[in-house]
Every structure is written in C-alpha cells, then in structure tokens.
C-alpha cells in the first residue's frame, strides 16, 4: 500500500486531518480553492466553545515539544515536510484507478510566488486600484493586490486579475522578484491512495428566501457578515454600524432563517444557535440591545455557558419564527409572533441578522457528486468507494465535532493504508 493522501479543503477539518496524517508519517496533499486556509471559521473571528481564535489549530506533535502551540498563521502549513499545501487549487476530477486514485488539480495563479515573497506588503502600498472589499461587505475598499484577512495563511498577497490594470508598479517595487503577472494556470495529477473530502460548508444565501428582505435592505445581514463587522480587523474596527454608518443600538436575530424548513433547508444546521448567542454576547458587550427569535435553542452542553451568559446579559428571547421583515423608514422591522405571549410583535431594530443554514459548497458538488449523499453531504466513510469525509462536509456541525471527526478519519485512513488487520 502507498502512503499518499489528498485532502480536499483546508478548513478546520482539512487542516486537522492533514496534520494528523503527516504526524503519522503519511504524505499529504492539502488542496484549497481559496487563496488562504481556514474556510468558514476564518471568517468567524472568535469562535466557541472556547471564545478564542478560529485560527488556533494545533494538531501536531509539536504541542509538547516546543514552546508554541500552533497558531494557524504561525504553523506555516506549507513548510511541513510531509504536508504539501496547494492554495487556489481546485479538483478537476477524481478517477479511480485500481486501488488508487488519480486526482487532477488545477491551480489558478496567485501571481505572487510563495517561495519568494517576504510579505513586506510594499506591493499593496503602491497599488493604485481600489475595489470594494467583499470580505468586509463591500463597505471598505481594497487593492487589486491584497490579503483578504490579516491572519490569512499563506501570508503572501494575491492579485485579483479582474481588477488589476497590469501597471506593474507592484512588480517594480518587489525587490525579490516575487510577482509574476504572466503566471498561468497549472494542472497536475496526483496519484493518491486515499482521498479525504473536507470541503466544508458555506452559508446559504438568504436572497433566495422570501420574506426576510435580504438584499433589499442593507441592514439585513447574515451571521457571517455580522462576524465581519464584529471582527476588529474588519471594516469598522469591530464597531457595529449600519450600512449608512450609524452606530447600531439594537439588533434582532432570526434563527432558523431557512433551516428546519421544507421550503428551504429541512435539516437543523446545529451550529447557528451557538454562534448567534456568541454574537449576541459580543453585541451586548458593546451595549447593543439584542433580541433573538428562535424556535428551539439547540446548544450543546460544552457551549452552554453562552446561553447562560446571553441570559445574564439581558438578551431578549422571543420564541417564534418571524415571517417577514419590512423596511420602515430605512430600518428593518421584524414581524414575529411571540408564541409564549400570544402576541404578534413588530420589532424595530437597526440590524436584522439571519442565521442562514449551512450548506455544502456549491462548487464542489459536480466533481464529487458520486461521493455525496443526502443534501450533498458525504458519508464519513464510504467504504466501497474508498473515499473519506470529515468535518462539515458530512453535515453541519460545530468545531469540536469537526475536529473529532477529522481525527477519527485520520485514524481510519492510516489503518486502511498502513496498519490494522
């Protein structure tokens, strides 16, 4: 048996499983379609249950042998001997070939060479092109050569060729010659003995969901977007402002906005109750009033402190699923029945935040279709096909469960390739 594993997706689970496999002596190719690793968690800033960085990803043995537990951004994934990180890379196809897999990859250019860039960021300074920064809800501008979040790994910037004018100012300023505007896409095929899908989830866009005025009113956001506002590296320095720049005084959160709903996504996304509570607490710390409309609060016990803290900090809970959000004098008004008071409420607030369901990444569906099951999620171990999956690729869940699943799959892969009768 060989020992090469391709891990698809460098979110939390993908990184975790890759570290474990590399620790166990297997050769790992970690493939990520974005320019930086971290997946959805990297957008979320502080994460539960520990209320620390999403970037804290220690999985390797170095924990006990060095001074550092590994921060994602310090671990320099790409530099581990047994672990090859391919960013900006998509899987074009996975073919089964005897007992092995032939995985073809396509890498789109970063235009910045990772092995040359010293991350001095001069190139970003000289760039004249400014476009709205999608990572920050388009509320601030970024350059054509940019880093989407300060903590993003790899640290080197990336060029957005759609807005680049090829003025070559960045090329000229880079004394180490790390920028190549003529870089081309590369394809390569890797022979692998196992494939692990860790393709993760994304928030389903609420614009396809009628009623909640998402897209109509700029002050109706998703929880991920709120996280970007709350993040101190975001557009507003962590201050929560409306689209018109006013300090937010009240926020209404709508849980299950499209989850547990046969018209949209019929399953429960598991993690949204807790991260909504986390955001509610962060908002309360800024003195913002918070109302949460829920049906059932589904908080795992290890995150129960969030519920307690939210209650202590006077978050208002309304049991009821809002039907719609109307825009009154520019502000969103949530219409909901408080089912415990038998009252139909019209809650005015500066922001409405939707806990959108977590769904598999749309892009991956085609290539992996034959490995996916209900709703586009994969089975953790699909034995006849020899494909493994972990993290939210197997269904929405929170970080602790993702990590546990990644470790479990690492062991399964190891046993299949190396040991175990």
């Amino acid at each position, binding site marked *: 048996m060989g020992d090469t594993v391709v891990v698809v997706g460098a979110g939390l689970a993908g990184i975790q499983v890759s570290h474990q496999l590399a620790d166990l002596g297997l050769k790992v190719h970690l493939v990520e379609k974005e320019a930086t690793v971290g997946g959805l968690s990297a957008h979320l800033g502080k994460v539960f249950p520990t209320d620390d960085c999403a970037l804290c990803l220690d999985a390797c043995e170095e924990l006990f042998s060095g001074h550092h537990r590994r921060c994602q951004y310090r671990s320099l994934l790409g530099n581990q001997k047994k672990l090859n990180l391919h960013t900006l890379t998509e899987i074009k196809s996975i073919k089964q070939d005897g007992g092995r897999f032939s995985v073809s990859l396509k890498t789109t250019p970063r235009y910045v060479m990772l092995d040359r860039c010293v991350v001095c960021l001069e190139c970003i300074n000289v760039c004249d092109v400014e476009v709205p920064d999608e990572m920050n809800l388009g509320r601030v501008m970024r350059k054509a050569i940019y880093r989407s979040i300060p903590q993003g790994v790899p640290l080197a910037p990336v060029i957005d060729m759609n807005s680049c004018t090829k003025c070559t100012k960045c090329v000229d300023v880079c004394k180490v010659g790390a920028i190549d505007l003529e870089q081309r896409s590369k394809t390569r095929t890797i022979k692998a003995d196992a494939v692990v899908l860790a393709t993760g989830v994304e928030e389903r866009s609420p614009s396809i969901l009628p009623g909640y005025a998402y897209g109509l009113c700029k002050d109706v956001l998703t929880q991920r977007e709120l996280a970007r506002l709350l993040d101190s590296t975001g557009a507003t320095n962590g201050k929560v402002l409306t689209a018109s720049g006013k300090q937010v005084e009240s926020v209404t959160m709508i849980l299950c906005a499209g989850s547990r709903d046969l018209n949209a996504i019929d399953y429960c996304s598991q993690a949204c109750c807790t991260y909504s509570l986390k955001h509610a607490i962060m908002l309360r710390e800024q003195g913002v009033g918070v109302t949460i409309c829920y049906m059932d609060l589904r908080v795992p016990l290890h995150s129960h402190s969030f519920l307690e803290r939210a209650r202590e900090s006077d978050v208002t809970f309304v049991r009821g699923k809002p*039907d719609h959000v109307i825009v009154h004098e520019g502000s969103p008004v949530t*219409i909901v029945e408080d*089912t415990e008071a038998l009252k139909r409420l019209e809650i005015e607030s500066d922001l409405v935040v939707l806990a959108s369901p977590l769904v598999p990444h749309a892009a991956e569906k085609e290539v992996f279709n034959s490995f996916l099951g209900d709703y586009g999620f994969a089975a953790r171990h699909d034995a006849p096909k020899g494909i493994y999956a972990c993290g939210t690729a197997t269904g929405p869940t929170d970080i602790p469960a993702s990590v546990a699943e990644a470790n479990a799959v690492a062991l399964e892969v190891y046993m299949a390739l190396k040991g175990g009768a």
Partner: protein
Amino acid sequence: MNIDSLNTSRFLRNDFKPRLARCELIAVTPTSISSDLEFRNWILKQPEGETLLRCYQCGRCTSACPIAEIDHSFNPRLFLEKVILADESLAENQLIWTCLTCEQCEVRCPEHVKIPQILILAKVRGLVSGNTPETALDRARSILSQGRTIQVSEPMLKTRDKMGLPSLGNPPVKQLAKALKELGLAEKLENIKSIYGGDGDE
C-alpha cells in the same frame, strides 16, 4: 439508579425558567383534553387534514397572516394548537370565519401544513352549532336549490342576449340533489340558525 448518588450539577441548575410568567393564564380552571381526541382525529381523517401533524408551532403563520396583523385575537398558530389538542371550542369560535383563505400562511409554513384547509374543516364542524355566517348559509341553500350561488334575473339574461353572449342553460339541480343526498346537507340547512344573525352583504 439512585437519584441521590448524582454528582452532576446539570440537574441542579435551573437554566430553563418556565416562561409562563410572560403571559397571564387565560383560564383559571384547566381545560381538559378529551381522552378520545375525537375532534383532532376527525380532522386528521379529512382530505389534507393529516398535514396538521407536521405543525411544530413556530408561529410563522401568525406573523404572515394579514388578518392577524389587524386583529390580534386572530392567531392561526393558536388555532392549530387547539386542533392538535382536540379542543373543539375552536369550531364554535366566530374568529375562524375571519380567515381569508388567502393561503399566505400556507405558502410560508415551513412544514407545509394546510392551514386554511384545517380551518375550513373546523368551520364545517361548527355548522351544527350555528357558527356559519348567514350569507354562507344562503349561498349554500341557493346552490342546492338552483345550482348557482346567485339568483339569475330576467333583465340580466336580456343583457347577455344583447351583448351576444351565449345561453348557459340551467344547472341540473335534481342530479345535484341525488349526488348529495347521503350528506344530508339540505336537512341540516333547514334547521341551522346562524349565530351571526342578520344577513351579510351581497
């Protein structure tokens, strides 16, 4: 399995306070849930009645309802809860006739409960007690006797003629009566006294 040997604080914390404090109890003496659940079971047997089972009381219907918006006592979610608990007092409640049958609730219901249909079924149950507007009774009588909801007048037939519109004939009333005989609707309509009094518009 000894409760005193518990060393787990989960069971000693009162995280979840009963929320009843938010609203006043409407009834002083508790209302019984009938042990045969007859009303509920009847509804479940009717066409689309079974969709009632899916209801998890999220309240989206109430917040979607245009009537609930102008009349806070009209609460589709609460009506469903009554049906779930087989509370037949709902069938005698005049409010159910305030339903527009606009189906806005049904369109938004996350569990595809046929809410207007269930209210229609409740109305049907209310007929015996007279919870039917006079207009509705009149229309029903008219359908049975003439096959139409409205009287056809001579001048109107002339107008149609003048407009060059074709004759539409007369509905076969006897056939209708024969098909409907076993339902006993005609007899019922004779005896029903609407609690609404007077007659509606039209």
